[in-house]
C-alpha cells in the first residue's frame, strides 16, 4: 500500500503503467496490485482533478445539510458527484464519514479538512482554489 500511495503521488492516479511498476518493484503481478488498489476508495484507477473535493454526506453531516453543500459544489463546478471538471482542475465526490461530525458539514480538499461548511461558502472555496491559494498539492 505505501508503494501504491507513492505511485499515485507521482502520477496523480494509478494508470496501468504505474500498477506495472509497483508490481515489478514488489515482485507481484499487476493484477494483484489492481485488485488491492480497486478495494480502497482513495486509490484512483481513473484520472482525477488537481483538487479532490470530498463532501461528507453521512448522517451527522446530512443532518446539518450536507446535501445542499454537495449540490452547491455541483452547481459551481458544473459536474455531478463522481465527476471531474473538463479542465481537469476539480474532482467532486460524495464521501463517507470523514470524522469531523461535531463540526458538520465537513469538506476535504486534497484531504485537508474544512469544517462548518455551508452551501453559501461553496462559491468562495471554489474561487479560492481557482485562484491557486488553496490546499496545495501536497496531500
Amino acid at each position: 500500500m505505501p508503494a501504491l500511495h507513492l505511485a499515485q503521488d507521482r502520477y496523480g492516479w494509478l494508470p496501468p503503467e504505474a500498477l506495472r511498476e509497483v508490481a515489478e518493484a514488489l515482485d507481484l503481478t499487476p493484477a494483484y496490485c489492481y485488485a488491492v488498489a480497486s478495494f480502497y476508495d482513495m486509490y484512483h484507477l481513473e484520472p482525477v482533478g488537481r483538487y479532490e473535493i470530498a463532501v461528507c454526506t453521512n448522517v451527522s453531516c446530512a443532518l446539518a445539510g450536507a446535501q445542499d453543500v454537495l449540490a452547491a459544489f455541483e452547481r459551481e463546478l458544473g459536474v455531478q458527484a463522481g465527476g471531474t471538471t473538463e479542465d481537469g482542475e476539480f474532482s467532486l465526490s460524495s464521501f463517507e464519514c470523514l470524522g469531523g461530525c461535531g463540526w458538520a458539514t465537513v469538506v476535504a480538499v486534497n484531504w485537508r479538512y474544512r469544517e462548518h461548511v455551508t452551501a453559501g461558502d461553496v462559491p468562495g472555496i471554489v474561487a479560492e482554489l481557482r485562484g491557486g491559494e488553496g490546499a496545495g498539492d501536497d496531500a
Partner: protein
Amino acid sequence: MTPSGLHEVLLRHADERDLTKRAEYEAVGGYRALTTALRTDPGELVESLLASGLRGRGGAGFPMGRKASFIPKPDQTPNPIYLTVNADESEPGTFKDRELMLRIPHAVIEGIVITCHAIGAETAFVYLRGEYATEFDVMAAALDEAHEAGYVGPGIAGTDTNVTIVIHRGAGAYICGEETALLESLEGKRGQPRSKPPFPAISGVYASPTLINNVETIATVPTIVGMGGEEYAKLGVENSAGTRLFSLSGNVVKGGNYELELGTPLRELIYDLGGGIPDGRALKAVIPGGSSVPVLTADEVDTALDFDAMAQAGTMLGSGAVIVIDERACMVQLGLRVAQFYMHESCGKCTPCREGTRWMVQILRKLEAGEAEQGELDLLLNVCDRILGNCLCPLGDAAAMPIASYVAKFREEYQRHIDEGGCPFGGESSLEGVVAPVDQHHAHLRGQIEVPIHA
C-alpha cells in the same frame, strides 16, 4: 454517586498547553510513566491494566488487560510479538481518536512504548486512516521528537528495551477498522476479514502474536501507569471504569468531543454540555455509539453513558459517538443513508452482508419513494435477521442492528410511508435528499448496476 460534568483525565493540560510539543508534554509530567514502566516487570504492568478495569475504546469494549494477557510470553513463541494500534477511526459519528492524535500525540506514543514493554513487543504499527493527512503529519512529527529524545528506538531511557513504531496509512475502507481486516490491509492485501480462530493474539500480523488496541485505549495507558490501576478503577462506575471521549454531533448547539466519566447521563451530555437542540426543537432520537448501534428514543435520554446501562437499554456504547436527531428527521431517510453506508463499505466476502445490505437499501429506497407494498417492512426485518450473526465480521450486524431498531421503534412512521404512498414529511425532513457515497471505482457505471430484487 452519578458522575457528572466534564472530567478531563486524558486531555488534562491540553487546553492550556500545546502538548504536540515534547517539551510541553514533559513539563506536565509526560513520559514519566514510560520511565517507571520500563523498570517494572511486564507481568506487573498487565496486572495493573487488569486492575484498572480499562475496556477497549474502539467499539467492542473488551477489557484491555485481559486481551494483553492472551499474548504468549516472548519465550513461548518462536515469532516476534507485535502491537498494532487501530487508528482507522471511521465509524460514522466518531471523531475522538483524531482529536487525541492532534492534541496529545505523545500520550499515544508513550502508551505504545509502555504496552510494547508489557507484552514483549519490539515493533508497533499504527494503522492510520488514509483520509487523516493532517493527523499523519502531527503523529509523524511527534514520533521524530520522541526518537530524538530516546523514548522510541533502541535502548529506551537507558534500559535494554527497543521499540520501533511504524505509521501505516490506509486508503479509505471502513472495514479496515475491523481487527482482522486491518491485519490483512497492513500486510498489503485487500482488507477482507479473516475467520477466527485463530485469534490475533496467537496469529495476527505476519502470522505472529499481535495485540490490537484502539488509539484512545493506548493513550489511556500512561495515565493508568501514573495513577495505578486500582486508583484508575475508581473513576466511572461498576464495569465501566475511567473516562472516555464522547463525540457529540447532529442536531446540537455545541458539537465536539467531551471527556466524561463513564456513567454520566446521556441527557447531561446533550443538554448541559452540548447546549441542547437548536431553536428549541424537540428531540426525536439518539444514536448513542456510532451509526452501527440500535437507536434510543427521546424517552430513553436518561440512560447513563456506561456499558451496562446501554446494554440494558438494548443498545451499545460502541465508539462513544452520540448523534442527536431532532423532530425534523425522517427515520426512513436516516435508515436509507445508514444502509447506503454499509452497502458501500461491505467488503463483499460474506454473502449475507454483501447482498443483504443491497436489499436493505433497495427496500428503504422504495419505502421513501412511496413504492413499497404492504409486508415489505417485514421483508426488511427478515433481511436484517438473515444477516445477524451470519457473517465473519461484525459489519453485517452493524448494518442490520440499527435498521431493525429504527423499524421497531418508529414502526408507525415506516408504515405511513406505505399507507400514504410516500414520505409523510413531504420534502420537509432535515434529511431530505440524502445522497449516497460515490462508488469511486465505478462512477461511470452509475445507475447501470442496480439489480432489481423482485422478479
